[in-house]
């Protein structure tokens, strides 16, 4: 079979759909890295959790994630208690109980009540996101906050650990079977030879919407500016009173939200297993590297490129699809390291 115009348009559509999701994931990786210097490897797990949670909710069952959220909350609570063992303040303790125990309990209770009701798909998506997003908060509290001043390497090793832990928890809470979520909307229409599903249109729209929302957050809100300021100059940000914790938590919750939404978007177009997220997340990571780990627009464009390359590679050399995609970063790394050498010489 050789490439003709019809196949090419199919491949382009496929590449664009996946690329849009990779763009979201790449943005989240750049966001987390620039603010906290953490390379957010566990992002893939958040994607898988999102997709699997939605798929379970589709069947009217209660997913494992609210229970997991509860466990995370308890761990965060105990860690906070430990760190305050010398001077415990009542108001801080109450706030801690509300955030670490109250919030997950509330979500757990709400899911128990809402899950069997067969609610419309939009509501199921909202429930999914509200389960996964707070996980970003607890994961930051448990794994990264104690290491706020550690080197990038230590943070990277931590990320590998968190990734492996969340992978194992995924297996426990969802089991080894793959799930596919129902499309948020069943419709489709034809455009020339092309069958466009409502789901793929939804993916484009959501991606664009999230990007616009991020733009407004970073350009127009004081908290968004504080995150940018932290990325530009950490000491400067502390000197104006921006707490490292606040920006760290915000970055992680945003990233978890984006990952959960990516999972929700991805879930209906491919079968997701507990370990599928990693590979999806890595492609976002490729895009982030192509964007130099710092540029949002370049990352977004690179992600579309990654999606395209992947889709065409699966046509021409499907066995080598992943190799080709991940091989993309080699020339970029060489290019960046040449740049770094020149920089040192100056």
């Amino acid at each position, binding site marked *: 079979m050789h490439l003709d115009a019809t196949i090419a348009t199919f491949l382009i559509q496929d590449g664009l759909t996946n690329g849009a999701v990779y763009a979201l994931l790449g943005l989240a990786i750049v966001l987390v890295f620039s603010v906290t210097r953490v390379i957010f490897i566990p992002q893939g797990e958040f994607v898988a959790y999102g997709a699997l949670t939605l798929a379970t909710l589709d069947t009217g069952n209660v997913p494992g994630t609210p229970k997991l959220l509860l466990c995370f909350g308890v761990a965060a609570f105990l860690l906070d208690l430990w760190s305050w063992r010398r001077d415990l303040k009542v108001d801080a303790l109450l706030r801690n109980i509300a955030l670490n125990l109250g919030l997950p309990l509330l979500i757990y209770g709400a899911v128990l009540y809402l899950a069997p009701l067969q609610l419309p798909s939009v509501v199921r998506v909202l429930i999914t996101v509200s389960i996964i997003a707070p996980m970003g908060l607890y994961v930051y509290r448990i794994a990264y906050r104690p290491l706020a001043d550690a080197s990038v390497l230590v943070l990277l090793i931590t990320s590998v650990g968190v990734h492996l832990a969340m992978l194992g928890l995924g297996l426990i809470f969802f089991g080894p079977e793959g799930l596919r979520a129902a499309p948020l909307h069943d419709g489709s229409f034809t455009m020339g030879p092309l069958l466009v599903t409502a789901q793929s249109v939804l993916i484009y729209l959501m991606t664009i919407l999230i990007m616009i929302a991020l733009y407004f957050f970073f350009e127009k809100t004081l908290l968004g*500016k504080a995150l940018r*300021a932290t990325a*530009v100059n950490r*000491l400067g940000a502390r000197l*104006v009173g921006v707490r490292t914790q606040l920006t760290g938590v915000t970055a992680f919750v945003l990233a978890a939200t984006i990952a959960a939404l990516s999972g929700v978007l991805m879930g209906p177009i491919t079968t997701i297993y507990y370990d599928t997220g990693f590979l999806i997340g890595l492609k976002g990571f490729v895009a982030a590297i192509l964007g130099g780990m710092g540029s949002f627009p370049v990352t977004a464009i690179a992600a579309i490129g990654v999606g395209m390359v992947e889709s065409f590679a699966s046509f021409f050399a499907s066995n080598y699809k992943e190799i080709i995609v991940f091989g993309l970063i080699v020339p970029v790394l060489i290019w960046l390291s040449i740049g770094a050498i020149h920089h040192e010489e100056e």
Partner: protein
Amino acid sequence: MSRNLLELTDIHVSYGRAEVLHGISLAMRPGSIVTVIGANGAGKTTLLNAVMGVIPSTGAILYDGAPVPRSVEARVAAGLCLVPEKRELFSSMTVEDNIELGGFLRRASERGETREEVYTRFPRLAERRKQLAGTLSGGERQMLALARALMSRPRLLLLDEPSLGLAPKIVVDILNIVSELRKTGVAILLVEQNARAALEIADEGYLVELGEVRRSGPAAELAVDPALMESYLGAHS
């Protein structure tokens, strides 16, 4: 006599095994300007960083009669503000955003009000609102660093070498601005290599050498001290 705004007792700071401050004590009253002078490497910057909490120290730091809060951010909230030697601006953000962020811990209404005051004080920055901080000249950057600090409505401003690397004419401008600031009631702890200029605007002066206070007293007295003149002021007179 009102109580001291800042009282340092026996401050020690070490980098690894090397101790760089060997027990510094210093006191300053609300609304006063105190300058710390001394040669390069005497530990002046270290002292300011310790007061701000950027680096750990031992000894007592009393602020407004009570132990100073632990974290940098809590100290900012309590009214301390450091303008570091390297300014630490957000270079890829606009002048406006830098100033806005200076008031991060203030309420939105307060922030708007203070912003107008700041722009009135630094009309140059008002002209360059939309420009990136990284594209400003040295003097403008120092103004921006001061402006950003004022946005937090500090009661104690810690200024580290505000004249460093600036043209002589601009040094005069900056020091004029500093002595103007005291009219707003803010106290200023000023570290300066340009000892003569610093003593001119200060009430009290401390001479720090090799991590210890060697001399202290009213700035006017230090400025005419013959021994001091020779080692620190001579070259400038």
